């Protein structure tokens, strides 16, 4: 089976810094894939290159067997990769429901003419958008918050809203940028359950995370970056034992550690 996402040789340079020096990554269909590494390893850069925010200097990208050029952000989303942001970016003055309804934009069609004439196509589509958005809110557990402005939601709920909004775009790959940042243990448990539900639905997930316990417990496979290069990949167990990974995180070669 073709992998859902295949990246070869992704490279990106910022002035004097080679943020990504040729990174390979493979994500299989239906898995939750973790992207980890020490600070400054290039995880967010890779993320931003993948989703079209930065144009890559080099690299081949294949989504669902088709090559795609991460050119513009909205085209990447249309192609099937939806992302969330490390510093939650919601539409603050719009309600939770409206936020998710905007997520449906890329899969719906009614334009100005339909809006002005309020024809059958428009009314049908609007009803569908509304229902789907409400369903997604319920799915992530915040259906009761639909009429409230996004800025009034608690931090954890805002995270879930952002995920619901991304899911509304019907992505093949859901890319989450540090979704557990700033969460306490309870909130992380809820988040983990949510991601497992998303996996059970058949959606593939790419996850940048610092919380090692979360990643090891949740992810099917993991890729480790350091200094812009991939230093290890495989199951969480394999990666945990990899000496290169240990060195990258702890700074000491394994034989110097007492067991």
């Amino acid at each position: 089976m073709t992998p859902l996402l295949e990246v070869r040789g992704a490279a990106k340079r910022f002035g004097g810094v080679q943020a990504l020096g040729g990174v390979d990554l493979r994500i299989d269909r239906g898995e939750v894939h973790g992207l980890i590494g020490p600070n400054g390893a290039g995880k967010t850069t890779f993320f931003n290159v993948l989703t079209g925010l930065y144009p890559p200097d080099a690299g081949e990208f294949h989504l669902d067997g088709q090559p795609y050029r991460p050119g513009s952000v909205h085209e990447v989303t249309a192609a099937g990769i939806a992302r969330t942001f490390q510093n939650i970016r919601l539409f603050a003055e719009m309600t939770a429901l409206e936020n998710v309804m905007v997520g449906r934009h890329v899969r719906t069609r009614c334009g100005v003419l339909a809006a002005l004439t309020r024809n059958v196509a428009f009314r049908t589509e609007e009803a569908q958008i509304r229902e789907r958005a409400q369903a997604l809110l319920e799915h992530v557990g915040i259906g009761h918050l639909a009429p409230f402005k996004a800025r009034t939601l608690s931090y954890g709920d805002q995270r879930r809203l952002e995920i619901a909004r991304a899911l509304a775009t019907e992505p093949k790959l859901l890319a989450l940028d540090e979704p557990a940042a700033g969460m306490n243990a309870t909130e992380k448990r809820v988040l983990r359950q949510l991601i497992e539900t998303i996996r059970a639905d058949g959606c593939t997930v790419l996850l940048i995370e610092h919380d090692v316990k979360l990643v090891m417990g949740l992810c099917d496979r993991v890729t480790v970056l350091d200094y812009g290069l991939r230093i290890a990949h495989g199951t969480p167990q394999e990666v945990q034992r990899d000496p290169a990974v240990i060195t990258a995180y702890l700074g000491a070669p394994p034989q110097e550690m007492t067991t």
Partner: protein
Amino acid sequence: MDTFVQQLINGLVLGCMYALVALGYTMVYGIIGLINFAHGDVLMIGALVSYSVATALMESSPNLSGWLALAVALPVSMGACVGLNLLIERLAYRPLRSAPRLAPLITAMGVSLLLQALAMVIWLPSPKPYPQLIPDTVFDVWADGPVITLTQLLILGVTTAVLALLMALVLRTRLGRAMRATAENPQVAALMGVQPDRVIAATFAIGAALAALAGVMWAANYGTVQHTMGFLPGLKAFTAAVFGGIGNLAGAMVGGLLLGLIESMGAGYLGSWTGGVFGSNYVEIFAFAVLIAVLTLRPSGLLGERVADRA
């Protein structure tokens, strides 16, 4: 060749005045991210105040030397403008420091309209001739060629001196360091003991003084004053600041001079370049054409930093 040098002279003089106003814009924008729409009108107030003072002095003692009148009018108008700007900052801009960007912009437009309206009330809307304070002396650059007036020479000289003073202030004094720090990172500057309110007030004060100076120069150079004289030059000076790189003092100076030259050359040559189709009356839009070109092609300006956009 004559036209070229003449336009060069005119352009540099105009550029000096733009540079002085552009500095005010760039300093305020660098520190609080506000385009102070009303800044050009401070120039106008400076010119009008000096007009009142000078006219009053000249009328009360007809034998008074123009230089003396100028020596009194200039500091008075600078003082008035500094006071005015501090008041505006305190009442209209400070409360909106944390408001969304639209609010201070609208307020600034309101302040601009207010200043013009007040000027109409105080000084009446009609244009007024500015008294001849500086002798009318004209120097030939070469025989039968381009000329430069004493006023223009003074403008060039004074501007150079003032710019040097400003650079010294910004680079060598405590206040200057505080200003630069606050422009970089207000929170950290505050942690280092800098009081942002004071620094911002000082920025507005310095900007006002420079604008008032430019206003007096403008009045002396062009001979008339009116309540509408500030807005458009102010906008063009903002263009100059963007042109040079907003937030960058050297950029404001360079941008101002260049814009003055561009306008001047355009005024002189546009007619002949386009065979009379576009005459010098199109000069007004040069500044905007430059602005659009800069923002489209090189948004950081000539001397601005190329900042990589890190999401």
